[in-house]
């Protein structure tokens, strides 16, 4: 199991304006894995993936995607390298139809045939989007919006996709469905990084997990081991530690 490392972050410091949020993060993602990035509110999870996707500029440190340094690139260039972020808060283009939204996801692909292929792929993945393809995106439900965001992310043939809290504000049943879909995405050959507040679910889904606290990596390890880690159980999973 020595898969290729595709994303390597070293001593990343980042934040908004003058406020530093990340105080030196080291992180590694191997090909084909699902990585979970966990932690409470305001610990810097979103800051981290915004720094990776270029939406905010890191103060210092390096982010290497395959062999390219991407910490200085603007977001549209990073997307072209195959690294896509599915933004938090279900940000779609509200006044455009579902299909137009998806096609915009493939903005960087010039080949029209390839765009249609990807569109069929996404429709196979999320049949509900095909049903609603001529509706305005503003009319979709929360779960459908999340599917649209994920579908739009898949349209540009990424090799690495990051989800920023895909379960936020959704009913538990739909959360389960979204997570199943993320699992399927990973099975189709993509590498996934997922931010979650729903720690239990995320640990069940992921291969490897990082827990952020105060802008540094607090804990890391295989997801299956972290589920049974006392510190994780106490802080994030609730319940007490059984005395042995």
């Amino acid at each position, binding site marked *: 199991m020595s898969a290729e490392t595709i994303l390597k972050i070293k001593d990343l410091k980042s934040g908004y304006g003058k406020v530093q949020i990340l105080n030196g993060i080291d992180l590694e993602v191997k090909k084909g894995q699902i990585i979970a990035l966990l932690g409470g509110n305001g610990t810097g999870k979103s800051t981290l993936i915004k720094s990776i996707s270029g939406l905010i500029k890191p103060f210092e440190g390096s982010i290497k995607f395959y062999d390219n340094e991407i910490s200085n690139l603007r977001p549209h260039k990073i997307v072209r390298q195959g690294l896509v972020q599915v933004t938090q808060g279900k940000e779609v283009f509200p006044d455009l139809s579902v299909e137009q939204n998806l096609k915009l996801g493939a903005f960087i692909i010039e080949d029209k045939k390839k765009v249609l292929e990807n569109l069929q792929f996404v429709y196979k993945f999320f049949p509900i989007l095909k049903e609603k393809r001529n509706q305005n995106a503003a009319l979709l439900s929360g779960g459908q919006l999340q599917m649209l965001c994920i579908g*739009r992310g898949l349209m540009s043939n990424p090799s690495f996709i990051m989800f920023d809290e895909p379960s936020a504000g959704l009913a538990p049943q739909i959360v389960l469905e979204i997570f199943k879909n993320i699992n399927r995405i990973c099975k189709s050959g993509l590498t996934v990084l997922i931010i979650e507040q729903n720690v239990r679910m995320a640990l069940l889904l992921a291969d490897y997990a990082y827990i952020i606290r105060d802008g540094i990596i607090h804990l890391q390890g295989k997801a299956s081991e972290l589920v049974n880690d006392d510190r994780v159980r106490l802080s994030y999973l609730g319940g007490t530690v059984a005395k042995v």
Partner: protein
Amino acid sequence: MSFSNKYRINLYWAAIIIILSLLPFIVPNLYQMHLINIICINIIMAIGLNIVKGFAGQVTVAHIGLYAMGAYSSAILSINYGFSFWMALPGAVIITVIAGAIVGIPSFRLQGPYLALATLAFSESLRIYISVNTDLGATIGISNIPPPVIFDFTFNDAFLYYYIVIPFTLISIYFSFKILKSKLGRAFKAIREDQLSSSAVGINLRFYKTIAFVISAVYAGLAGSLYAHLDPGFIHPNNFTLQESVLYILMLVIGGIGHIWGCIVGAVFITLIWDLTREYYQYQLIIFGYD
């Protein structure tokens, strides 16, 4: 089916062009013809503004400044440097495009009302600069701007000038539709809808915003140049005040921001209303809602 459909659309266009080209023979007097020319120029202005404001969603008040830029550069080029209309027009468009690209720079960081204020600063300071600079005619304005000439034929009255204005208007409308349907148009709409998502799908925000401003500058420069050479060939800084700027925004709002046909209807409607209410000059403030 699709062939006959296409054929029918072409037929419509042919009919429209024939009617438009016969218009000078129907219109009874010179003033009304002059008004039609102004309407055409306003249509070019409105659909140009629509590209940056309606398609790309960038709130700009600089369009009137770019219009002034086009008119004054065209006038200066033809009076001081002896350019013919056919040389002065592309020259004016190029100068306006450069200005347009610069005006677009604040849109990288500013949005909504802040961008409007930044662009307002451009158009107002340009107007004030013109009105104090004697080389640009100051408050006397520039007069005797030569009309267009083809071989020995001079387009020196509104009836003849119409045949210069109308092809440019039709071409402008045509390209506006082309842009809307192209990749450029899709990028503009995405930027209008959500900037964060746009950059997340790989749209270069700075590049496409600049392009939107540049394209609208082409329209403004063209309209300005056409306005400058329109009989009687006179331009004055008062033609390019904030009030005119509000009028152009009004054309868009009335027609429906983002709709090309709407802009055209709005331009015709507002120009006519503006002309009809000229006698009641003191009430125009109420009618158009500016001060």
